[in-house]
């Protein structure tokens, strides 16, 4: 046996070498194939974030840009106001309020989209397969137009002499125009309108393969319509609901055009605040800090909700 091994060992060695060489090549090819993705993530993801992080820790230049002096002022400024004369810090909730309103509006937009989007997604999923693409096409059609233009047209509808007010006055429901433009309501309506497809599409995706005989099975097993919805439809579409909520909430939080146009720059959201720091505010470090704070809050919220979801899954078994 031992002799036999010795006789074959040169071949075995060759084989080992060949295998090692092959796996080296495979590794190199894999790395090469990964390169485009890595470059994209690096150039468009990590690099801007790193720049923002560095800028947030510098001092603002007088005419924009940054002074290369280390400072945490940008973060301090978010919560406190520095007295011009004696440098003492006093608590300032102005920026927190903007954050609060942004979260409030984004959450309302998310809930509004869920209420509007779920029935639409369910409706499309319940159509015969050959009809579904037409409905999806109709949902995505507005996306062929620029968001700016869509928001402007919204502005034309809700302004004092706009379509909505004129129609209401024609119908005699109101005598003078209701001031709708430049209110939180207008911003919310704009957000709901802009992000509705982001809610519909993931929920539709989770319901696309839904077996509608499960509804009959539920009814058959003594579940009322409400119970069937709660115990069968909602749990099965949960991944789509979670994805849709995240896809609406996150961009709605950072929305810029909608609050700028429909909120008239008076009802600020975080996006406007950040944009302002790089423009008229001339405070790039503060803008960078606000952007990073927003990102961290969103990340933490996502992680917490993901963990909660996973635990719920485990509890249900």
């Amino acid at each position, binding site marked *: 046996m031992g002799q036999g091994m010795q006789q074959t060992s040169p071949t075995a060695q060759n084989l080992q070498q060949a295998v090692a060489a092959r796996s080296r090549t495979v590794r190199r090819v894999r790395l090469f194939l990964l390169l485009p993705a890595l470059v994209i993530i690096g150039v468009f993801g990590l690099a801007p974030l790193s720049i923002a992080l560095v800028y947030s820790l510098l001092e603002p230049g007088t005419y924009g840009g940054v002074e290369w002096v280390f400072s945490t002022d940008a973060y301090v400024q978010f919560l406190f106001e520095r007295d011009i004369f004696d440098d003492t810090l006093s608590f300032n909730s102005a920026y927190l309020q903007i954050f609060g309103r942004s979260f409030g509006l984004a959450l309302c937009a998310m809930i509004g989209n869920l209420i509007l989007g779920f029935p639409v997604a369910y409706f499309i999923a319940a159509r015969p397969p050959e009809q579904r693409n037409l409905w999806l096409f109709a949902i995505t059609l507005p996306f062929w137009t620029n968001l700016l233009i869509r928001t402007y047209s919204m502005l034309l509808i809700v302004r004092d002499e706009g379509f909505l007010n004129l129609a209401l006055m024609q119908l005699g429901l109101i005598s003078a125009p209701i001031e709708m433009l430049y209110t939180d309501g207008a911003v919310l309506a704009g957000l709901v309108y802009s992000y509705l497809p982001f809610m519909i599409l993931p929920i539709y995706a989770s319901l696309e393969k839904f077996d509608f*005989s499960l509804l*009959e099975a*539920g009814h058959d097993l003594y579940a009322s319509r409400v*119970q069937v919805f709660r115990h069968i439809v909602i749990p099965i579409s949960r991944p789509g609901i979670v994805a849709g909520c995240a896809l609406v909430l996150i961009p709605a939080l950072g929305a810029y055009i909608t609050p700028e146009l429909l909120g008239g720059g008076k009802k600020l959201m975080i996006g406007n605040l950040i944009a302002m720091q790089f423009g008229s505010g001339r405070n790039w470090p503060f803008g960078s800090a606000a952007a990073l704070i927003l990102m961290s809050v969103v990340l933490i919220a996502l992680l917490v909700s993901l963990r909660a979801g996973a635990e719920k899954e485990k509890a*249900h078994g």
Partner: protein
Amino acid sequence: MINVREVTKRFGIGASAVTALETVSLDVPEGSFFTLLGPSGCGKTTLLRLIAGFELPSEGEIALDGQEIGHLPPHKRPVNTVFQNYALFPHMTVARNIGFGLEMLNRPKAEIASAIDDMLNLVQMGEFAARRVDQLSGGQQQRVALARALAPRPKVLLLDEPLSALDLKLRKGMQSELKRLQSETGITFVFVTHDQGEALAMSDQIAVMSAGRVQQVGTPQQIYTAPQSRFVADFIGDTNIVAADLLGYDGAQARISFFGGEPLLANAASDGLPPGVVYVALRPETLTVCAASNAAAVLRGTVLDSSYFGAGSQMRVRLQNGTEIQVQVAEPSPAGSEIGLIPDTSMLHVLAD
């Protein structure tokens, strides 16, 4: 006891309406294994869905133990269904699937838990309680679907072609399993199938359906040995249907003659047929072969070929008028030979149409 009274079901409205069931009446005895048998599109599944409550009748009534249930929603009927594709809830474990009905009925937790255990044992799936349903094989899913439908102890269990998705061997096993479950639980089973072998093997009673109507109701023996219509005779087993002349009636029996031969007496589904051409059902196993020259031979023909099927052989025989029939024999005659056939007259049936 289910009483279906002159139920008609139409789908669609106006001129495009399709009638799936046409004034169907049926009585399903309590505690029986009752089968609705028919080809696809005959209305058997529609009838099942009407009993379950997934569809409402256009006309007529459905009563369960004397109470009209035809217009109640499914969750208000003490009737459960085993679906053709099982329709198990994919987001729940096996145990929760089985407990779902009782959970919706707001039964106490302890009762639900013990019912789940009982059901898992009944269908021999004890070790699978915590599994997700998508981790189960087809046969196992079938058992879970059965357990889920039986757990609330319904008065009637409806089964919509539950075995059609299983392979042959599993299907045979599940047939006896279903029979066992039915007799152990004493629950009325209404079973829908297009497989006549399945229906004959399992049922206490069979309703043969075609084109939205019930053609015949009876025990498997009655359906097999005494088909009343051409459709039933043709649908159940390999029946030969041969034309004959009806000469008249002799009491309840019909006097017929094949190809102008000696008159003989046969059972008749109806005594109201006018004399003339009628059709007679001849089961392949009720024909005896004799020499073509034998004077007792009622039918004569040429053997075309034969096929061996284990317990015997099936011969294809062409009769003098060109009709091809099947004859079951122990020893086939060689192809091309002329033979005579003597039918067992007690198994001859003049069909109603």
